[in-house]
């Protein structure tokens, strides 16, 4: 028997751990799918199970187009749209602001650049949850409750993005900056023509992280949006499961299908940018 084919217990162990781990990860998704495919009564009676039903189209119809409440504005489509705006606005805003802040800190002789950087960095210790009351008050006074600006802008400054872009910019060779200076590229040209294209992979990485982070926001949208037309998916699903009262049957199918829809965009973003990632890593070098 050759060495490579020898049976190894450690390999079995490794694989068992991986398989069990992925089952644990996948099981909730399977449960969601299962409950989204049966009638609410079935789920009420039996709980989650292994038998898939044929109610997927019906539940999909409800999930996307049914609205609760008074205005009828919070359909699934609307919530998906709101979540998209929050996710993209959040990610793009954070990347733009983070890059520009890092650009200022790394490339310009500012008097207190280092201090400024560390001040930005310490805001990591002050996440939204800590400063939620003053943040809310500011948004409210500015009249930005129930607006996209109110949802996005207060969260847009990002110490994380600034930090990563700063580290990345510092790794770009000094000579590149100097060559650009001799080539007559001013500060804005250098940023647009050279720094941004060089940062592609970094931007992609930040985009994944920030999009998912924005998409998953729950607390802030809950506080800022009271109009149903402004609900995001994550907040809206909660709302649907909350409207179960009296003799009403909980809408298991609808809410579980919405949950699946809520998972999809982040997954797609990761898949889409991952190929970009690999391309960026293999094709370009600094």
């Amino acid at each position, binding site marked *: 028997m050759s060495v490579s084919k020898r049976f190894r217990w450690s390999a079995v162990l490794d694989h068992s751990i991986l398989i069990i781990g992925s089952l644990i990860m996948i099981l909730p998704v399977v449960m969601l799918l299962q409950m989204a495919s049966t009638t609410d009564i079935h789920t009420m009676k039996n709980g989650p199970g292994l038998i898939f039903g044929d109610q997927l189209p019906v539940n999909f119809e409800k999930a996307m187009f049914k609205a609760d409440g008074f205005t009828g504005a919070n359909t699934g489509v609307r919530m998906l749209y709101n979540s998209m705006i929050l996710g993209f606005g959040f990610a793009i805003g954070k990347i733009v602001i983070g890059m520009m802040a890092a650009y200022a800190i790394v490339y310009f002789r500012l008097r207190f650049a280092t201090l400024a950087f560390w001040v930005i960095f310490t805001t990591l210790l002050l996440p939204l949850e800590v400063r939620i009351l003053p943040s809310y008050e500011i948004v409210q006074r500015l009249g930005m409750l129930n607006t996209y600006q109110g949802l996005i802008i207060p969260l847009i400054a990002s110490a994380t993005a600034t930090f990563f872009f700063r580290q990345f910019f510092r790794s770009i*060779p000094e*000579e*590149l900056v*100097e*060559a*650009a*200076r*001799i*080539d*007559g*590229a001013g500060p804005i*040209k250098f940023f647009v*023509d*050279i720094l941004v*294209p*060089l940062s*592609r992979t970094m931007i992609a990485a930040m985009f994944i992280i920030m999009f998912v982070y924005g998409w998953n926001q729950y607390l802030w949208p809950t506080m800022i949006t009271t109009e149903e037309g402004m609900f995001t998916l994550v907040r809206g699903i909660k709302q649907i499961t909350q409207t179960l009262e009296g003799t009403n049957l909980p809408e298991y199918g609808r809410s579980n299908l919405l949950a699946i829809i809520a998972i999809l965009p982040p997954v797609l973003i990761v898949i889409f940018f991952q190929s970009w990632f690999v391309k960026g890593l293999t*094709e*370009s*070098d*600094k």
Partner: protein
Amino acid sequence: MAQVSLNNVRKVYPNGFEAVKPASFRIEDGEFVVLVGPSGCGKSTMLRMIAGLEDISDGALTIGDRVVNDVDPADRDIAMVFQNYALYPHMTVAKNIGYGLKNRKIPAADIAAKVQEAATMLNLTDYLDRKPSQLSGGQRQRVAMGRAIVRDPSLFLFDEPLSNLDAKLRNQMRIEIKALQRRLGVTSVYVTHDQVEAMTMADRIIVMNAGRIEQIGTPAEVYHSPASTFVASFMGAPPMNLLTGRAEAGRVRVGNVMLHQHHEDRDLTVGIRPEDIIPDSHGHLEVEVTLIEELGAHRLLHGQMQGHPLTIHVGKDHPVETGHIRAAIKPNAVSLFDPASGVRL
């Protein structure tokens, strides 16, 4: 085309370190000047001041007939080639070469024509659509040259452009750069720590040491009449033999061997190039050879004379034997230096 002149140009870094002590020299139109010196002696600092990448602390820098101390690098009408090429990694070769022109708002058609012309000159026409990462070191260096050429500058600046290449390619590129400069006739300042590059490429050499200019001269002057013991030992491989001697009654002696004449009684450092010593059975130098280096075309004998280490450059026919030999010094081949300051007498 332009002359460059420096008038007491000095550089003090913000941390108080004086990297370039007040320096004055003039570079003529079309001249190829090489700044040479050991690592850390301030060559790059000097070049970067000329380029405008580093502020000038004191003194005046003139390019053409303009004092350019406060002029932006892009407006100094210069082009620079860096050691690590500094190509824009995300741009194709053509874009890299044309980027400076694009920033000057030159029409795209003219840029394309100029890029094509430069690429032809540098044998890069087949690579115009490649990214720098898909090129070899030598090709990258050519692209960097192309970027300099298309701008049609009045001054080329090179900062150790060949240091990242292997020895063979370095020799080849050395010749190419020199030929190109001759053809274009552009005034050039070339920084290197490699004395071979300095000797072979320069019209004039500026030797620097610890922020100070030690000597300015043609390669022959610098080699044969070094202005200091530093230059004597820096230029030339193997370096000049430096022996401790003394002048008395008009004669310079090392140990009890008479080597030269000098009118003033004093201690001296006596410098002799290895190739200025010739084995000669009637010679009055007695040398104990302890090691022989075979270099193919010639050999180097390492040994002792009167207790001083001595290197002799001999032809390939010299017997490969250690031991006692006699040698003589070629006429007018001795340099004398002040032992304390190292300055040539």
